[in-house]
């Protein structure tokens, strides 16, 4: 087919791959903690069989750890499921806040690796755009990835869905290293994604804001 299709397909697959790998890593960590706590129970049981006393508080802490990790895994898998189903519809009503929450959750580990936090601020009323959910997610992800590289460790990125001049958009604030040529530093496929989703990117290097404007 033509190059635009190819680049969108390639970018989409890379996006899917990165998110899947990150989720797999998170699940591995959850399993590792459950595994160690199960092992500790075995150790304590073995010690009890040899006559040692079991501390009920220690057992309780293990149980709490199991519960905590189950909730953590459940949250990871809920996000994974939402993400996987985002390709079900080619076009539809997209709630930008919900989408921003999902992508920020998926980007939580890459952000943590750079010692960055992401906060998604809820809008007063839902901010809806008619678009392709997966393309918009891919755009937000690429913007966040680049924002990570332009933000000092320890910083917080704030995402806010908003509606201005009849257009819905997502503002990413707190990119302290944001410069006018930020858009030029984004991966080349961003231009194709912006074109395909009818979006544009506005850089405000004074306020240190990046605004992804949809229809």
């Amino acid at each position: 087919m033509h190059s635009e299709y190819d680049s969108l397909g390639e970018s989409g697959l890379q996006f899917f791959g990165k998110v899947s790998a990150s989720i797999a890593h998170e699940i591995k960590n959850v399993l590792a903690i459950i595994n160690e706590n199960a092992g500790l129970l075995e150790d304590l049981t073995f010690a009890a069989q040899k006559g040692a006393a079991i501390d009920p508080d220690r057992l309780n802490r293990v149980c709490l750890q199991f519960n905590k990790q189950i909730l953590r895994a459940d949250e990871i898998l809920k996000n994974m499921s939402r993400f996987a189903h985002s390709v079900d519809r080619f076009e539809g009503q997209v709630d930008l806040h919900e989408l921003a929450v999902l992508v920020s959750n998926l980007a939580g580990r890459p952000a943590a690796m750079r010692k960055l936090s992401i906060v998604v601020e809820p809008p007063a009323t839902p901010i809806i755009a008619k678009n392709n959910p997966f393309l918009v997610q891919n755009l937000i992800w690429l913007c966040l990835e680049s924002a990570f590289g332009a933000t000092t460790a320890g910083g917080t990125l704030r995402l806010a869905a908003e509606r201005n001049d009849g257009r819905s958009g997502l503002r990413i604030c707190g990119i302290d290293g944001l410069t006018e040529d930020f858009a030029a530093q984004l991966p080349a496929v961003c231009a194709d994604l912006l074109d395909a989703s009818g979006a544009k990117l506005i850089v405000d290097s004074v306020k240190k804001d990046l605004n992804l404007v949809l229809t």
Partner: protein
Amino acid sequence: MRVLLVDDEEEFVTTLAERLTIRGFAVEYATKAADALVLAGKNVYDIAVLDMKMPVIGGLQLREMLERQHPEMKFIFLTGHGSEDDYRAGSTGAGYLVKPVDINILIQKMKEAIEQ
């Protein structure tokens, strides 16, 4: 055997440390590289078990820093499964294990590393 465990997953590293302590190892742990370097500045360890992926300073980089402090220290890496990390960790000559870890295999790997 004196062991330094470093992993940013606190619940993992504390429980593994407790289990190794039960088995007679002298274990200290850190959840970030900077704290590990402080510990290594004050104490001597026979072996360090390092998570590959940690915020800011990963396992491979931390190993280089620890080796400069203690050239005789041995290393084992903990990695995610199927990632490039496995190959990178293996290529350093250090042992590596994929999470979740079988503690008996970890102990065996630690002993092998020390005997090398």
